[in-house]
């Protein structure tokens, strides 16, 4: 039987299907009650309005049921707020391989300055420009590479 932790950690993000929720840093804890076998999973959203949360909750329950843990509860917490700094190194590498430029380190509070060097995930060139602050999902911006001319997503530092 797969452990509850391993089953939940393997759930992939429904909108960026190359990365698991653990690598994305939104999985906060998995606790199994010894007496009942009931599993309590705690997750946090990337963005408050992220529409993928419903799907993620359902996927977690399904994964747990398949791993022999039919009794599961998924809790959502908002504090401390998710940060792109929580994306693991393995997660960043997977994003880049999928053509999504990983986020840089988060800066302190205040206005968000323009990111100066986001490398093209396709050709590696630093000569890229932002097309739009907001991309295909709330957590991504849209950029274009001036060297290879390919457009690409960039996971915004948050």
């Amino acid at each position, binding site marked *: 039987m797969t452990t509850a932790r391993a089953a939940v950690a393997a759930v992939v993000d429904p909108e960026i299907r190359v990365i698991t929720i653990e690598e994305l840093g939104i999985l906060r804890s998995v606790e199994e009650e010894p007496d009942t076998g009931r599993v309590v999973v705690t997750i946090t959203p990337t963005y408050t309005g*992220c529409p993928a949360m419903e799907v993620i909750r359902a996927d977690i329950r399904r994964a747990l049921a398949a791993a022999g843990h039919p009794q599961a509860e998924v809790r959502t917490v908002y504090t401390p707020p998710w940060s792109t700094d929580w994306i693991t190194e393995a997660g960043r590498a997977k994003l880049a391989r999928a053509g999504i430029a990983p986020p840089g380190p988060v800066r302190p509070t205040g206005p968000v300055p323009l990111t100066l060097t986001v490398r093209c995930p396709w050709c590696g060139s630093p000569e890229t420009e932002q097309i739009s*602050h907001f991309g295909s999902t709330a957590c991504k911006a849209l950029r274009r590479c001036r060297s290879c001319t390919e457009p690409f997503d960039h996971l915004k530092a948050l």
Partner: protein
Amino acid sequence: MTAHAEQTTPLAVQATPPTRQAAPGTVTNRVGFVLGLADDALVAAQRLAQWCTHGPEMEEDIALSNIALDQLGAARLLLTYAGEMEGAGRDEDALAYQRDDREFRNCLLVELPNGDFAVTMAKLLFLAAYQVPLYTALAGCGDERLAAIGAKARKESAYHLDHASLWVRRLGDGTDESHRRMQAAVDEVWPYTHELLAPDPTAPVDPATLRVDFDSAVSGVLAEATLTVPETSWTPDGGRNGVHTEHLSYLLAELQVLHRAHPGASW
């Protein structure tokens, strides 16, 4: 619906708002404050979503929809919390779908029509210049729930402020025509900013304390955009007491029609 049809000045609210009865610091008072923030976010989300498939370019269409989604996310958390504090068994859906316009506590700014793209950007600039310091202050307030919501929403609002600032600079410092329309938009919407910063010393965060940050953000962007900060003339308000422009009723009709026709519908 109790829309205000009589208007002598465009978008003016003529009725005398009822005074808030709750004693300082009471739960009722705090519910009203949280409901105000929730309704700001909910109504702003609905207005911004109206740009979906109507944006001037595809990237902007996506951007405005994303910002609407952020506002909706904050609205859901705030509505849920307001409902729990109220203790009358109303959840986020009951509060969003089953209140009439006089029960909404949003500021008038967010319910104003989208106008042209410049008006939408002026509205977003002022809203974000208010929400960023507001959420930042909430993140450090004594109410744990509000602090958590503030810490989360602050980061998203920073992107909204950045986005609106970018467009206001681009349009204001663009062609003669874009400059003219951006200034006209700022002039039109400016009076409604005063309601955002009206003093409320009993609130978890007194909006009047946000004035310095608001002014510095807005004046900086307008100066770079070669635009003029308007003179303060009239200062319409009433939204925090449930006295709105007629525009809110139409917006709510669209927002609520499905739920009112089919209570509890989901898909």
